[in-house]
């Protein structure tokens, strides 16, 4: 069971969005976030929502799958909504004791909620439609100009690659340790949260020891394969922008212009 876990929240599908260069997708996501903050009226959000809807449709990621990722932020969503609706001052339309709801409050609360929902959906599209490894690769290449200023672009990407590679290995290791301890009478399932958390300490200690051992082995294996950091390294996969990437890029720019104009003149 533990062997089948999916990494991150990537949704495998064959779509034009999946095939785009990760750099184009990262740029698009960043622009989309900026655009959401440029927008200052509901028609602007309608445009953003329409664009996002089109992207989701083309990407063939089911809406249900995206919504599942929204669950953890529902609380934050309601919290900001409640805060805005009760706290904003203005024309009072409903009152109960110290609580009052104003017209402006409703507007701002809905406004913020829409912005937050679009923000989360938009940015999760990046990880849903891009393999984690391509994502790290894209980020490394986008950040590499900053390497000259001392920014460890290659090192960060390498760390993420290794982390992705070893998540299943460490899960397997955890499974093994827990089974070994259960066989000798350890109990991970009963008692309250504190008790259960305490029961995990004997699992974590050997897990850390084995993580260090793995790190040492891996470091030696990497050295044996001539790894000496990012300089002088070439890559199997060259990243070249294809026609579709350039088209996507132009569309992104057009979208940005549209949003700026909309915010300014409406």
């Amino acid at each position, binding site marked *: 069971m533990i*062997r089948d876990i999916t*990494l991150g929240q990537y949704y495998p599908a064959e779509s034009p969005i999946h095939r785009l260069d990760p750099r184009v997708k990262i740029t698009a996501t960043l622009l989309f976030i900026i655009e959401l903050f440029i927008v200052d009226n509901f028609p602007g959000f309608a445009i953003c929502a329409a664009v996002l809807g089109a992207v989701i449709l083309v990407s063939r990621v089911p809406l249900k799958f995206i919504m599942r990722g929204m669950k953890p932020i529902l609380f934050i969503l309601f919290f900001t909504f409640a805060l805005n609706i009760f706290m904003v001052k203005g024309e009072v339309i409903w009152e109960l004791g110290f609580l009052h709801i104003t017209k402006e409050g409703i507007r701002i609360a809905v406004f913020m909620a829409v912005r937050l929902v679009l923000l989360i959906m938009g940015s999760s599209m990046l990880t849903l439609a891009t393999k*984690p*490894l391509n994502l790290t690769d894209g980020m490394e290449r986008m950040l590499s100009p900053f390497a000259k200023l001392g920014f460890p672009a290659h090192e960060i990407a390498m760390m993420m*690659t*290794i982390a*992705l*590679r070893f998540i*299943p*290995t460490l899960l*397997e290791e955890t499974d093994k340790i827990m089974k070994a301890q259960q066989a000798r009478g350890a109990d991970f399932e009963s008692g309250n949260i504190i008790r259960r958390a305490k029961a995990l300490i004997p699992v974590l200690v050997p897990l850390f020891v084995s993580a260090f*051992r*793995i790190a040492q*082995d*891996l470091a*030696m*294996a*990497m*050295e*044996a*394969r*001539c*790894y*000496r950091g990012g300089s*002088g*390294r*070439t*890559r*199997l*996969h*060259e990243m070249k922008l294809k026609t579709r990437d350039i088209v996507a890029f132009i569309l992104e720019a057009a979208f940005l212009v549209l949003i700026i104009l909309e915010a300014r003149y409406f």
Partner: protein
Amino acid sequence: MDKVITVEDLTFEYTRGENEEPVKALDGISFEIDKGSFTAIIGKNGSGKSTLAKNLNGLLIPTSGSVFVEGYDTRDDEAIWEIRQRAGMVFQNPDNQLVSSIVEDDVAFGPENLGIEPAEIRRRVDKALEDVNMGEYKMKAPHLLSGGQKQRIAIAGVVAMRPEIIIFDEPTAMLDPKGRKEIMAIIKELHQDGKTVILITHFMEETIDADRVIILNEGKILLDGAPEEVFKRADEIRAVNLEVPMMTDLADRLIKEGIDVPRGIIREEDMVEAICRLKSQN
């Protein structure tokens, strides 16, 4: 014949704790490795065989004495990458030596480090995966593969660097019998293709295809020679608590019973032949 590795009076010490006496893992070892040969280095746990392996590609540097790989001294910092490109190494644990979560990216890791052109990396990766019969797995995630398959990926990763020498440090120790067979078959193939193979192992049966066996004991070379010659001295091998291959053992017992078979037989076919010859004599 060309020597690809020369080990001269190699001693390697390490210290366990701060105030403890240094332990001699290797004690004055000298030997040479011929180009294109297949050498098996065998010994018990703690005999120093793994330490020796790591001295052969500069992962460890000799405390005294020296190691030359195709003329490069492992103590020379400048030459270390030249050495590691020429002497590739496959480790024991298949899980802990794979870097990427996609098979072909992992095989490409070594060539990428060498700064090879992308198109050439692509050719090498495809060829290396074909060499270990893993071509169809190139887009798979390593953690979904069996131990033997992962070890084949690790071998492909080394082969793609086009080394002259491949050092296998107990490559089958963590595998099931099926995986062990696959790996041994690949090692033999690589040797037939002209690679110099050094196999570190503690399975006696894995040495019988080698053209030279070095037996290590307590950091020193106990015996060194062709397997047929080395295993003739079965008593010396047993004296240090090592086993001999099953056929050698059988031959010794037959001789003890007064049956005339040659000493130091290691292969089943040779044993069959020897017994058939006996039968036709009688």
